[in-house]
């Protein structure tokens, strides 16, 4: 496929925004259950929620550039029964609304106690956070399924697509939380950095699994099934036109094998290796600069990763567009 930068920015930005929310809520759950010592302040939760919301909004803005008629975008909530894209369109504003509420409740200090179970105090933000977590996971699934549900795009048609959206989004969000902690709440660095390392390792395992899977795929469609003629030697002599069309522009990245391999190497280094080293350094010697480098490297790497993900999708319609007579 021809990767669209609007979609690359949409998926990477909202993924990070969702991950950042999950990071702060995980920390809240841990401190409420007293697994870790409560050290975060409402201000930190408020700031982190604001950053998460900002990332979600930036993603939404990026997605508008993908549409031919953004003024009709409201219509896209209609087909939620069948379309994962429609479901994403509904869940994304829901996540944004809940993250906004979550941040607002913390920032304004409206922590009304809803109930107490033993020594555990469940307050309003805890409940909103639980709902937001549900929405965040729904959004991850919807975003991943948009691609995973297309069965003839064999590279995407796998549970690994959804898993990778969840893991890469979470890893980048937790890394962002580590950066925010380094900047504002140093006591939380080890908590977020530790989780970031764990998520990053899982993300690496599953992303590698998907790379290996895709390398071994054999296309189900061939020129024989495409035109229905049984012969081992079939060559297209003309695609029917000499100029370009949507079919020749939208479905192939047009880059060399070497370029593809380079992008793969770049994203493995920038998403996984550099941030991993920086996170380990941060565990021992916290520094905003080190985490800043980790975050920048990871985000640029994620753009490359998403570009590669889209470009790797081999659309069967390309079989019909091989030769200009």
């Amino acid at each position, binding site marked *: 496929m021809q990767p669209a930068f609007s979609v690359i920015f949409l998926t990477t930005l909202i993924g990070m925004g969702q991950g950042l929310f999950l990071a702060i809520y995980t920390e809240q759950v841990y401190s409420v259950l007293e697994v870790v010592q409560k050290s975060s302040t409402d201000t930190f939760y408020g700031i982190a929620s604001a950053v998460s919301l900002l990332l979600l909004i930036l993603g939404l803005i990026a997605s508008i550039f993908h549409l031919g008629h953004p003024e*009709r*975008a409201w219509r896209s909530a*209609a087909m939620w029964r069948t379309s994962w*894209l429609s479901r994403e369109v509904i869940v994304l504003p829901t996540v944004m609304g809940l993250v906004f509420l979550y941040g607002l409740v913390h920032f304004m200090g409206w922590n009304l106690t809803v109930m107490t179970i033993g020594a555990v105090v469940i307050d309003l933000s805890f409940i909103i956070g639980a709902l937001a977590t549900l929405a965040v996971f729904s959004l991850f699934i919807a975003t991943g399924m948009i691609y995973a549900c297309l069965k003839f*795009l064999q590279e995407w048609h796998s549970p690994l697509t959804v898993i990778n959206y969840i893991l890469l989004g979470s890893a980048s969000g937790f890394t962002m939380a580590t950066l925010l902690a380094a900047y504002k709440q140093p006591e939380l660095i080890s908590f977020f950095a530790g989780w970031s390392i764990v998520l990053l390792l899982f993300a690496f395992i599953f992303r590698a699994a998907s790379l290996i899977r895709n390398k071994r795929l054999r296309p189900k469609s061939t020129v024989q099934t495409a035109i229905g*003629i049984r012969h081992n030697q079939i060559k297209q002599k003309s695609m029917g036109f000499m100029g370009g069309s949507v079919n020749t522009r939208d479905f192939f990245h047009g880059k060399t094998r070497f370029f593809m391999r380079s992008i793969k190497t770049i994203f493995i280094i920038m998403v996984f290796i550099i941030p991993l080293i920086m996170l380990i350094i941060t565990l021992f010697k916290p520094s905003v600069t080190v985490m800043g480098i980790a975050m920048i490297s990871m985000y640029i790497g994620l753009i490359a990763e998403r570009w590669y993900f889209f470009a790797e999708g081999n659309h069967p319609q390309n079989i019909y567009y091989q030769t200009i007579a």
Partner: protein
Amino acid sequence: MSQLALVIDLNVCVGCHACVTNCKEWNTSGSAGALSDDHPYGKDPSGTFFNRVQTYEVGVFPKTETVHFPKSCLHCEDPPCVPVCPTGASYKRAEDGIVLVDYDKCIGCRYCSWACPYGAREIDEHQKVMKKCTLCVDRIYDETLAEEERKPACVLACPTSARLFGDVHDPDSEVSVAIREQGGYQLMPEWGTKPSNHYLPRRKNHVSYHKDELERADNPLKKEDYQVDSSEPSLDDVTSW
């Protein structure tokens, strides 16, 4: 329930592109507005077409065959492009099975074109909506036209009658009979889209003779052990029957 569709005979198609030009002409003149057509005579022409004729070479020289292959939307019975549409702009008509796009609802997200394995959908770069073959829905029901003209433009244009149009759910229709009797098949059956358009394969007429049919086994001359000697004049040469 009927399912209108095209049946394209690859045995007959000569690759003249008349269906392509007539399709473009009819559909660029419709009420939905012109189809894009940028620099048609320039260096880098680009535009929206609903139908294309492609050419394939089957076999290795000298045993090759040239196959001209027209391709447009196949109006699948289970169209993968319809359920993915977030707005419902892409739909399949219940009454005749034509897959259409409501240009007023389409947001131009291109998701349906990703979901079509055949590359049958093309976004109009000027109107920014997805377009595709409508099976000339604005022609086939037009009662102001003579009845024989209520067919898709491509079908009317074809000089060799390689394109048949009709209801593939009616077992007695011209198209159903052609599919059944002449080996009609679907494209990319592996994805379960059940295309309504069918293709008729290349067919060759072979007559097979048994040796017996060329040389009579019960020839009475053989019974008499009469040896035909071709060097001598035969009865045919000396008598006039």
